[in-house]
C-alpha cells in the first residue's frame, strides 16, 4: 500500500504542483445484526475499500473519493481533486494555511483480547439474542425490542506530502438496545448503547443480561411516571446527562470551526464562562473508550485537551487549519467517518472532571427539584441554546429522590447554565454514543453527578 500511496503523493506534488496533499486509504470490514424482538432480520457482512485524496492548491481545498486502490484510478482522482481545488480557489478571500507538522512514520496495531472478526456470527447472534430475551422476559408490559449490532475492523493508511506515513488499525464494537413498553394508553421508550474500541470483551465488562435488564426496567418504570411541571427548577444531573450536556451544550461551541463561525465562545478564550467547580476535557487517549484513537485523520496525535479549567475557557478543539488561525497546537480532533468524506473537527471522549461531593450532598438541600439520570437526544445552537431530552428522571422532594417523571427535557443558555453549576460530585462515568455533524463519529461523554441551581424544564402536554 505504501508504494501506491507514495506514488500518488509524488504525482500530486510533481505533476500538479500542489501545496499539500494527503491520501487516506481504508480497508474496512463490517459485521452487523438487526434483531426485532427475537427475530433476526438479517445477518450482514460487508467490505468497504476506498481512498480519499485531499489537496491544497492556491489556498483552496480539493477533495476526491473513490472506492478503489488501483493506481490509475487514484491518479485520475488526484487530478480530479486538483481541478476541484482550482475551481474552488476562484472566489477565495482568505487562503487556507495549515499549522506546521513534522513528518514521521508509525504503525498502530489493535490488540483486542477478543477480536470481533474472529468471533463467529453464531456467537454474535447469541449475544444479541440474550440481550433481546432479557428485555422481552423482564415484564409482560414490554411490547418491543430492537437491537442493532455492529463491529468494524480494518486498517487506515495515511500519507501526506510532509513525509508522514501511518498505518493504524481500526476496531469498533457497538450495539444499541431499544425497548418499548405499553400499559393502558401510556407508551414508554428506553434506549442504551454499548461501544468500545477495546474489543468484543466489552460484553464481559457489562454482560448482555445486565444491560438488557437496565433498558427494560427503565421502560417499565416510566409507565407509572408522571408528567413534569414546566418551568425553572433546581436539578441534579447524572453522569449520563452531564456527558451529553457537556458534549452538546459546550463541546460543539468549542469545536474551533464552530467557534470561528460565531459561536458564543468566539471572544471567550481566557475568560470565565462557568462556575469555579467546572473543569471540562476532550480526551482522545482514554484506553478502549469509544472515542479514542492514536492519530486523527490528518495524522496528528490525539491528545487530552483541557477546554475549561475551574470555569475559565483555556482551549478549543482543532484541526490543522483552525490551529493555524488560532496560533494553537493541533489537538488531534480532525476525524472523517470514512473515505467518502473529509476530516472535520469532532469530539472524542468529552467529560466534566469530578470534584468532591457525594450524591447525598447534592440532593439533601433541595426542597423540590429534579434528578435527571439518563438522556434521550440533545442538540445545541451557536447562540448557546441547548436542549437535552430526558429518558429517565425523578422528582427530588425534601432532599430525597422521589417519583419518576417521563418525557422531560431541559433547556437553557450554555454559559448561563454553566455559571449555575454549584456542586460537582466525586463519582465518574463515561458513556458511549454517536455524534452527528453531517458525518457520524463514535464518541464518549460523561462526568460525575452535578447540581445546577436552576434550569428550564419542558414538561409534557
Amino acid at each position: 500500500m505504501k508504494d501506491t500511496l507514495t506514488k500518488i503523493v509524488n504525482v500530486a506534488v510533481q505533476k500538479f504542483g500542489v501545496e499539500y496533499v494527503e491520501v487516506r486509504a481504508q480497508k474496512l470490514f463490517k459485521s452487523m445484526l438487526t434483531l426485532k424482538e427475537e427475530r433476526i432480520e438479517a445477518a450482514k457482512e460487508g467490505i468497504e475499500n476506498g481512498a480519499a485524496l485531499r489537496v491544497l492548491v492556491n489556498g483552496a481545498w480539493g477533495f476526491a473519493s473513490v472506492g478503489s486502490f488501483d493506481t490509475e484510478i487514484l491518479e485520475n482522482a488526484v487530478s480530479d481533486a486538483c481541478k476541484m481545488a482550482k475551481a474552488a480557489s476562484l472566489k477565495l478571500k482568505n487562503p487556507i494555511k495549515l499549522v506546521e507538522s513534522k513528518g514521521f512514520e508509525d504503525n498502530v496495531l489493535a490488540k483486542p483480547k477478543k477480536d470481533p472478526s474472529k468471533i463467529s456470527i453464531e456467537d454474535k447472534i447469541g449475544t444479541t439474542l440474550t440481550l433481546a430475551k432479557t428485555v422481552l422476559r423482564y415484564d409482560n408490559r414490554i411490547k418491543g425490542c430492537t437491537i442493532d449490532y455492529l463491529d468494524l475492523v480494518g486498517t487506515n493508511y495515511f500519507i501526506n506530502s510532509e513525509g508522514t506515513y501511518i498505518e493504524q488499525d481500526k476496531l469498533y464494537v457497538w450495539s444499541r438496545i431499544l425497548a418499548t413498553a405499553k400499559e393502558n394508553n401510556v407508551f414508554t421508550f428506553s434506549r442504551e448503547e454499548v461501544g468500545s474500541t477495546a474489543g468484543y470483551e466489552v460484553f464481559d465488562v457489562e454482560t448482555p443480561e445486565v444491560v438488557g435488564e437496565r433498558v427494560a426496567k427503565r421502560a417499565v418504570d416510566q409507565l407509572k411516571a408522571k408528567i413534569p411541571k414546566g418551568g425553572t427548577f433546581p436539578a441534579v444531573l447524572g453522569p449520563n446527562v452531564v456527558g451529553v450536556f457537556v458534549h452538546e451544550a459546550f463541546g460543539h461551541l468549542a469545536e474551533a470551526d464552530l467557534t470561528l463561525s460565531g459561536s458564543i465562545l468566539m471572544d471567550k478564550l481566557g475568560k470565565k464562562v462557568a462556575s469555579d467547580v467546572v473543569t471540562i476535557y476532550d480526551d482522545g487517549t482514554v484506553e478502549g473508550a469509544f472515542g479514542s484513537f492514536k492519530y486523527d485523520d490528518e495524522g496528528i496525535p490525539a491528545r487530552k485537551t483541557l477546554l475549561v479549567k475551574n470555569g475559565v475557557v483555556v482551549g478549543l478543539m482543532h484541526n490543522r487549519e483552525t490551529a493555524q488561525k488560532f496560533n494553537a497546537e493541533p489537538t488531534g480532533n480532525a476525524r472523517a467517518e470514512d473515505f467518502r468524506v473529509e476530516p472535520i473537527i469532532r469530539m472524542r471522549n468529552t467529560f466534566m472532571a469530578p470534584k468532591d461531593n457525594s450524591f447525598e450532598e447534592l440532593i439533601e438541600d433541595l426542597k423540590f427539584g429534579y434528578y435527571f439520570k439518563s438522556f434521550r437526544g440533545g442538540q445545541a445552537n451557536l447562540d448557546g441554546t441547548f436542549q437535552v431530552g430526558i429518558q429517565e428522571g425523578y422528582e427530588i422532594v425534601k432532599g430525597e429522590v422521589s417519583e419518576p417523571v417521563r418525557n422531560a427535557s431541559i433547556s437553557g443558555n450554555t454559559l448561563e447554565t454553566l455559571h449555575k453549576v454549584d456542586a460537582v460530585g466525586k463519582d465518574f462515568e463515561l458513556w458511549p454514543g454517536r455524534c452527528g455533524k453531517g458525518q457520524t463519529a463514535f464518541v464518549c461523554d460523561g462526568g460525575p453527578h452535578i447540581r445546577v441551581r436552576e434550569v428550564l424544564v419542558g414538561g409534557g402536554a
Partner: protein
Amino acid sequence: MAALKEEEIISLAEDAANFALRKGVSEAEVFVYEGLTTTVAIERGQIAKSSRIIDRGLGIRTVINNAVGFSYTNILENKAAIEETVLKSLKSAKASKPDKDWQGFPPKKPFAHVKNTFDSSICELSSEDLVKTASLMLEAAEKTDKRVFPVEGGIGASYLSRAVVNSNGIVGFDYGTIVECSLATVAQEAGEVTPVCFEFNVERLYKIDPEWVGMEAARQAASALKAKRVETKSMKVIFAHFALQQLLHYTLMDAVKADYVQRNQSALQGKIGEKIASENITVYDDGLLEGGLRTWKFDGEGVPQQKTLIIEKGVLRNFIYDNYAAKKEGKESTGNAFRGGYLSTPNVEATNFHLAPGKKSPEELIGEIDDGLLVYSLQGAHSSNPASGEFSVVATPAWKIVNGKITRAVKGAMLAGNVFDVIKKISALANNERKIGQLVAPWVIVENVKVIGR
C-alpha cells in the same frame, strides 16, 4: 470516472444472483447503487472547498431455510470479489435463524412511470459552474444585511442510479438527478449571536434559485436579532416547513409504518377508519410525485412505487408496507421498502409524505393570529418519544406574533405536547408547500400549544 451503464449494472446484478442460486440458496436479491456527486462548499463566509465523490456498490440478500443473509461490497471491478461477497451472504444466511414469517421476495410487477426525476444538465455541471452558483448565493446573503455571517453551505449536484434483480424475475434499473443549494447563517450585533438560520433549495431538475436562498437565509438571521423571552402559556403556533418536518419525522412518520404497527410500537395501531387528525388534514405517501425527492420507478425491493392514501380528511386510511410487513397481513407491498444505498437491507420508510396544502397565503396565516408564535425550526425534535409522540423541544429561530403581525424574535421558548394531539389541533394550512426531506407540506397553524418561556 463515468457512470456505469444500465447493461453493465444489470449484468453485474444478474451474475451475482445467478451465482448465489447455483450455490444452492432458495432465493436471491441483488441491489446495485451508484452515486456521483460534485460539491462546492462555503465555509465561514467563503468558498474554499470542492469535492468529487464516487460511490458505488452491490448488496445481496440470500435466503436459506427462511433465514436471511446479507452482504455488500464496493469493489465491483473484480468478479472474484463479488463472488466472495455472495458467499459471505450465504454464510450469514446459514448462521442466521429461520424466520417463520418469511414469505419470499416480491413478485415481478410492471414498474411505475415517473416524471421529472432526471435532468442531464445537472450531470454536466462542472465545479466551476457550481462555484459560480455558490457565489451568487453567498453574495446575495452578504448584500442583504451586513450583520449576517454565512456560516456554512454550498451546492451539490448528484447523479444516482439503482438496480434490483431478484430470483422472482424482477430486473429493474432507474436513474435520476438531485441538485441542492443551502446556506446557514448567523447574525451578530452588540455581542448578541442569533441561532443558526437555514435556507435551501433541493430539486430533481436544475431549477434552483440560489439568490433567493442567500437572501432568505440572511433575512431570517437579521430578523432573529434582539430576541427576548416569552411568558409561559398556551398559544397558537405556526410551524413553518422545517419545524413541521422535524416534529413529524420522529413521530407520525414512524407511526404509519406497518412494521411499527405490527410490533406494537405505533400509537396508531388499530385506528384505521378512525378520526386521528383535524378535518383539513389529508396525507398521501406519494412515491410518484412529479419531481419528488423520493420518486423512483420502484422501491428498494423492486416493487413499483405508488400513491397511497394515509389520512383522508382527518381519518386514518392506510399504513405503508414493504413486502415482508405486507405478506404478514396477507396484503400487497405499498412500495415503501427504502434503501439508503448498497450498505443496508431495506426498511419501511415513507417516500414523499405529502400533506395537502390549504388555500391561504402564509401572510394570511400570520394575520389570523392575535397572540402566538411563528416557528422556523426546532431543537431537540429527535429526543421526542417515538412511540407516544410526546415532545419537549426548543423553538429556534422563532418570532412572536401579536395582532396579526410579527413583532420580534423569541429566545429559549420550549414547546411541549404530543404530536398525535397536535395533528388534531391543526386549524389552518397555507398554500406554500415545499419539499423538505421526505415531507412535502405547507405552513400550518396549531391551536393551543403549550409554550414554556421561563
